[in-house]
């Protein structure tokens, strides 16, 4: 019997090619976009890859300082002194890393100049983040403490600068300084870990950075467990309240927040540097609403297509009932037809999403992008299309199948 249903469904679908194609395109496209978007979002926000511990760390990126009376305000990245003297001694943290924003530097290599991104990091940075080391090693605490001129490259940069040779031990001339390459790590595109070159913070040409409250650093604060994060947030706010500027007459109020990645983006979006609540909840709500809206369009289309077909099918239902089909058999038939279409569309969507992500990764449109399909999202998307497919295709058919055959034959809905 089950085989009959499949065969009938197959026959109907191959016969109604346009209907099938539109339906499939609808499902496929929706699922594809949904998967690609969530894969990108997940890469950005979810603890994964190099930043796999991001459920355990927070970042402090911005310091807001205000003068007495509030007539002058300064907002900017942290200075190293702030991190070293105020954040490192915090009680609630396990580890604090200082890391500079990526700066563009000129790299001279065989008469060629490349503009590359360089970050200066302390030793804790390499412990908090989970870089996959392909060759050599990352700077040790001693390398950093001694101010050794060592550098780590990512795989693409290593291959570009030293084609056909190992990058290890090579001299790297970057921003007027010469480093020895000691390690190569995997490419990554995430908030705290994307860069081409990393060197110890102590190799900075001037030691002035050590005395600055404002600079171009931000801090990563690692907790023992995700449950500790609120403690860190409270303590950072506390630290900000008690911050002592060198000249208290210039700045007498400081604000800074320990943020998750989502908070970080929300703050940038909603300009909420001055309040504890970053607006991440709102951001999430907006993302969810957009996704639902996006899912709704094809869903409604599906409903529309299916209900347009129902009239046509009412005669079929009447005939089948007249010749001995029970409501149950009919419902099973319609369910199978719908489920089959959804599953097939889902499969196509999955393949299309994988292809699209593959293309994104390799096109260089977004450098160093490495993402994975989230199968849970795929499942959800599929469930939603199934839901609408059943809602639109099966429920009307089911209602009609409960009529007496005569009524169905006459097309009474």
């Amino acid at each position, binding site marked *: *019997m089950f*085989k*009959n249903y499949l065969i*009938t469904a197959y*026959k*109907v679908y191959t*016969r*109604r090619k346009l209907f099938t194609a539109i339906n499939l395109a609808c499902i496929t496209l929706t699922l594809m976009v949904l998967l690609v978007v969530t894969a990108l979002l997940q890469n950005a926000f979810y603890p994964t890859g190099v930043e796999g511990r991001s459920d355990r760390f927070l970042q402090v990126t911005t310091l807001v300082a205000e003068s007495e009376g509030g007539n002058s305000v300064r907002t900017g990245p942290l200075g190293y002194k702030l991190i070293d003297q105020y954040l490192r001694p915090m009680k609630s943290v396990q580890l604090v890393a200082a890391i500079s924003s990526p700066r563009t530097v000129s790299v001279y290599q065989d008469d060629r100049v490349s503009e590359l991104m360089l970050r200066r990091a302390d030793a804790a940075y390499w412990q908090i983040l989970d870089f996959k080391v392909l060759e050599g090693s990352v700077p040790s605490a001693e390398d950093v403490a001694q101010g050794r001129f060592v550098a780590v490259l990512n795989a693409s940069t290593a291959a570009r600068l030293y084609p056909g040779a190992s990058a290890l031990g090579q001299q790297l001339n970057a921003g007027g300084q010469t480093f020895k390459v000691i390690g190569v790590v995997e490419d990554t595109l995430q908030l705290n870990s994307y860069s081409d070159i990393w060197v110890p913070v102590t190799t900075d040409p001037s030691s002035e950075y050590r005395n600055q409250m404002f600079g171009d650093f931000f801090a990563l604060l690692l907790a023992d467990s995700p449950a500790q994060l609120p403690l860190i947030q409270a303590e950072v706010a506390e630290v900000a309240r008690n911050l002592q500027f060198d000249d208290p007459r210039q700045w007498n109020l400081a604000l800074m927040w320990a943020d998750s990645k989502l908070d970080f983006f929300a703050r940038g979006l909603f300009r909420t540097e001055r309040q504890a609540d970053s607006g991440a909840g709102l951001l999430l709500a907006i993302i969810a609403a957009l996704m639902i809206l996006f899912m709704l369009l094809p869903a409604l289309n599906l409903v529309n297509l299916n209900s347009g077909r129902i009239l046509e099918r009412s*005669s*079929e239902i*009447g*005939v*089948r*009932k*007249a*010749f*001995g*089909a*029970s*409501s*149950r*058999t009919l419902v099973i038939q319609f369910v199978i037809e719908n489920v089959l279409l959804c599953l097939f569309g889902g499969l196509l969507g999955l393949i299309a999403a994988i292809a699209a992500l593959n293309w994104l990764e390799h096109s260089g449109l977004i450098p160093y992008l490495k993402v994975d399909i989230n199968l849970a999202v795929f499942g959800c998307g599929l469930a939603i299309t199934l839901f609408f497919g059943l809602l639109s295709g099966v429920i009307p058919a089911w209602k009609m199948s409960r009529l*007496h*055959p*005569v*009524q169905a*034959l006459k097309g009474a809905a």
Partner: protein
Amino acid sequence: MIRLENISKTYRTDKVETLALKDINLHVNKGEFLSIMGPSGCGKSTLLNLIGLLDQPGAGTISVDGAAVKSYRDKDVAQLRNQTFGFIFQSFHLINDLQVIDNVELPLLYRSLPARERKQRAREALERVGLGARMEHYPNQLSGGQQQRVAIARAIVGRPQVLLADEPTGNLDSQMGGEVMDLLLRLNQEGTTVVMVTHDEREAKRGSHIVRVFDGQLVS
């Protein structure tokens, strides 16, 4: 074979109540060819649908082979419809998405028969109505007469005891109508009971027995 006792049927819409059939008593004998005649709107189709258990009477009892039909829930009547009746409609009601052979096979899907036998029987039925060469066609690729013959093949494929035909020639020209009539008569001669609604006195006379409906009641 089929007995209707004190059957009434009322259609209710929001505004009006139509008494379509009133106190009908009718016996369809095994092997007969019964023609139902009457003016338009008098209740012929309603009567035929009640005989075939496609609709539920408002009052009265219908017995099939001596057993009264008590429930019209389809798990109770589906089997009876499938085994006892074969329907032929004025507007064919073929499923356009399915090939002729699949249309004809349809009643057998609701029995437990192996696929090979179903196909075999459907092929035989089509050959009987002279459409052995059209099995792979879709209904809308056939003429009206051919479509009605497909519908007849579908009605007889399950070898039902009773064929119910509601103006089977109503949508056909006289030549095609004649072919369809010949086919029904032949099936009747082979032992199938036929109940046919028609407007055509000459067609009706070719059957063994005529009942006339007027305004929801049997006359004569």
